[in-house]
């Protein structure tokens, strides 16, 4: 399994996600600067990390979505290659129209950093196949613009096709407003593309991948990707 982590100016979770992949899977990770035109050959998984690309100055993810490297990221996705966008990376994916919807400012109008409980809604994905369906996991969030929104008909279509992979929930797995930190429609925390190869999520699995840091729920996330690829997925 070969992972490429794209680094935009202002990315700040790139080293965190590299650390998580290396420590949980021990597989190869390459850093790709945003000005590159090509991904390293043989890349299985592209990760767009969290952070504040271009300072979030225009709109979160808007400038990064137009970086040179994004053309080859889109090509990689078009060929069915795996793409994972975490936090700012999710915002970049929506700005690049590789995933539907937008991420609006949290309903508190403030940045929120705290551990969150998520219910795994769809386990038939390359990113979640090791989780039992309905399992509640704890990943932290850290974002100012995490309110996932899209028009009602598109939202329904997303739900109908099982596009919602993670939903904010209570520790008991109840996905109601109490468990919703940012006001996301339908408590949506993470979604996947119709083809099932591009995942975007606001919470940070890389921050929940070591017992020392208070949680290991993220390990299954990384192991799911490895299992998928080892079984011949691409």
């Amino acid at each position: 399994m070969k992972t490429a982590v794209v680094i935009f100016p202002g990315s700040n979770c790139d080293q965190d996600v590299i650390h998580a992949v290396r420590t949980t899977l021990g597989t190869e990770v390459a850093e790709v600067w945003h000005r590159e035109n090509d991904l390293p050959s043989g890349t299985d998984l592209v990760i767009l990390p969290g952070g504040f690309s271009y300072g979030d100055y225009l709109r979160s993810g808007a400038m990064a979505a137009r970086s040179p490297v994004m053309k080859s990221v889109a090509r990689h996705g078009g060929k069915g290659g795996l793409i994972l966008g975490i936090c700012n990376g999710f915002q970049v994916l929506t700005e690049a129209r590789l995933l539907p919807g937008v991420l609006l400012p949290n309903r508190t109008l403030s940045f929120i950093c705290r551990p969150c409980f998520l219910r795994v809604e769809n386990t038939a994905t390359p990113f979640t196949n090791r989780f039992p369906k309905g399992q509640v996991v704890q990943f932290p969030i850290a974002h100012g613009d995490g309110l996932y929104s899209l028009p009602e008909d598109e939202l329904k279509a997303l739900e109908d096709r099982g596009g919602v992979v993670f939903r904010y929930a209570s520790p008991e797995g109840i996905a109601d407003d109490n468990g919703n930190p940012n006001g996301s429609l339908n408590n949506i925390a993470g979604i996947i593309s119709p083809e099932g190869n591009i995942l975007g999520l606001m919470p940070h699995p890389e921050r929940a991948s070591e017992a020392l840091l208070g949680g290991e729920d993220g390990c299954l996330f990384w192991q799911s990707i490895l299992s998928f690829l080892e079984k011949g997925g691409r």
Partner: protein
Amino acid sequence: MDFSRYGIRKEEFEAASSVLGREPNECELRILGVMWSEHCSYKSTKRLLRLFPNKGPKVVLGPGENAGIVDLGDGIGAAFKAESHNHPSAVAPYQGAATGVGGIIRDILALGARPVASMDGLFFGDPGHPRTAALSSGIVRGVGDYGNAVGVPTVGGKTVYDPAYNDNPLLNAFCLGFVKLDRIVSSQTARPGQAVILLGSKTGRDGIAGAAFASVELSDDSKESRPSIQIGDPFAEKMLIEACLELQEKELIVSMQDMGAAGITSSSSEIAAKSGVGMTLHFDRVPLREKDMEPWEIALSESQERMLLIAEHGKVDEIMSIAEKWELDCAVIGETFEGDGYSILFNGEEVASLPPSLICDGCPQIHWPSKLPVDLEKRRELELDDLPLPDDWNEALDALLTLPSLAPKQWIYDQYDSMVQVNTVKGPGHPVSVLRVKGRDSLVAMVFDADPWKCYLDPFRGGAETVARTARALAVAGAEPLGLTDCLNFPSPEVPEQYWVLEECVKGMAACCEAIGCPVVSGNVSLYNESPEGAILPTPVVGTVGIIPSFREYLPSGNWDEGDVLFMVGPCNTSLAGSRYLRSRNLPLSGRPLEFWGEAEKDFIQRALRTARSGAASSGRAIAGGGLAAALVKDSAESGKGAAVSLGIPTRKDVVLFGEGGARALYSVPMGKVPLFKVIWNGYPCIVLGRVGGSSLEVEDAFGFTVEELGKKWRIR
């Protein structure tokens, strides 16, 4: 020559003229006015700061550099410093706080260290005061937005509310970085014949002479000081961090200095003075944000996110290409030469020529007169006989826990990314913040604390108590204190009674540092924190850093186990003087805090370290604000477990439960470890309080709450 309009005193003007053999010109006077301000020169406090011990077996770098460094072992050091940004935060809370965070991060970066954690000291006015909400929310957003974007987690801090900060809120920012000890970058290593390079944002008119602004009292026309406020750009700072660390990694620079107060002038003249070289700067080569800037404006601009680099000429091209990669401006603006000269050229004309030694070390020191405050004895009057015990202990405890200074600060910490960089083992809201060091067993622990009320009532004891609190918290967690940094926030030293308080506080802090063997490795002084409405409380803030050999030897708080025995170690007969409890009963700030006892502090630290490292307890918490009662409540709520506690002590129950001060801790000890625990604490006051168990915390003949109720009162993650 009207030197006073540049903030220069008569004797300073004379000193400068005598060194130069002529009168300084206007540009030079402006430079000296800023560089000789209190903020940059420490002219009122240098003498006092010498009282701090600054050497120790673990000290790699002491005061005088951009930050101090202590040895963490394995060739790694922790570089850390705290700095105040009080005046800017009072006038423009959001930008003032943001640039405070940015500035301290660059101080750490200047040593070649990667900034890995921040903490903040926030001192706000009365929550009911009309300005407090806007100031506090602006400052908190400023700290958060900057730290979050730049990717340095805010892992802890201290928040205090008191009417004394109504007009003068304080923002102290602490930052810590990790550095390879053989790769420390210094500001003392420039040599003649090297290039002087400016890296980072363009220079504009923002923040001109901000350091001078920070060295006078705030007045009603302080709003006109808005041009003295800097604007922060965390995105540029993130680029600057990565670029500087890449330059250091590739060994392309010989010296580096951040541009904080007094911008290009201070950074360049300090490198020149410390390295013992001369410097010529060509101001027409400085990338500017605005047209037609005067040379003195360029000299003193405090535009943010800039660093000064010194490099061999042969490395300049490679430096330029790294700057280009990180999309930063970069320009060679001068060169070093042999000698004690510092010359600024603008369009071929020399506009200033001063010896760096004069700029950096030439300011005459000031010995302000010192006088015992006349009302000090009156402040200390506290007659316990006139203070009835609470009728309703539950109500008394409620009042204590809702005191803004003691109540949980989740609304603040939620706005801070406390986890980025994936090192945070224990984040905000805990007595000690703990980071792991990737690839190593050891953990770094840190505390940022203050107790201005004790300092007001007895500056010596309060100063000592402030340092001691940080060391106790670390030791209980299993962290050996290695060194500390401090921000001395005080009002004008020109009032003899206020200078006396400053002096006594420093003496008390120094006494504690000596007693426990914890040196001061860096720090900052912020004076003139007063306005027409009044002066702040004397507020020394201390950030202490310690090391825990491994995770096994870390003792958490709020970790009671069913059946554990609860112990309190330390004296029962503490003091209500200046306590949170008195505040919660709306009583005036009064009383005399406990006498400082250095031997006991040292003894406590050794025993607490043994307790943590031998695994003799399942949970430990140094008793601090709110006394034993607050410690019991926090531990019970966080553990989600109750306890039955009885205080079989003849001392007044309010003093036992709510008294503050002294080296004390609350421990929860598994039954099987009780003999070991008792051996460790043999010869130190140590009493059994009760057992952990049940669904409520019951203190005999005092208060009782269910654990569920406590969870709501002390909501913490």
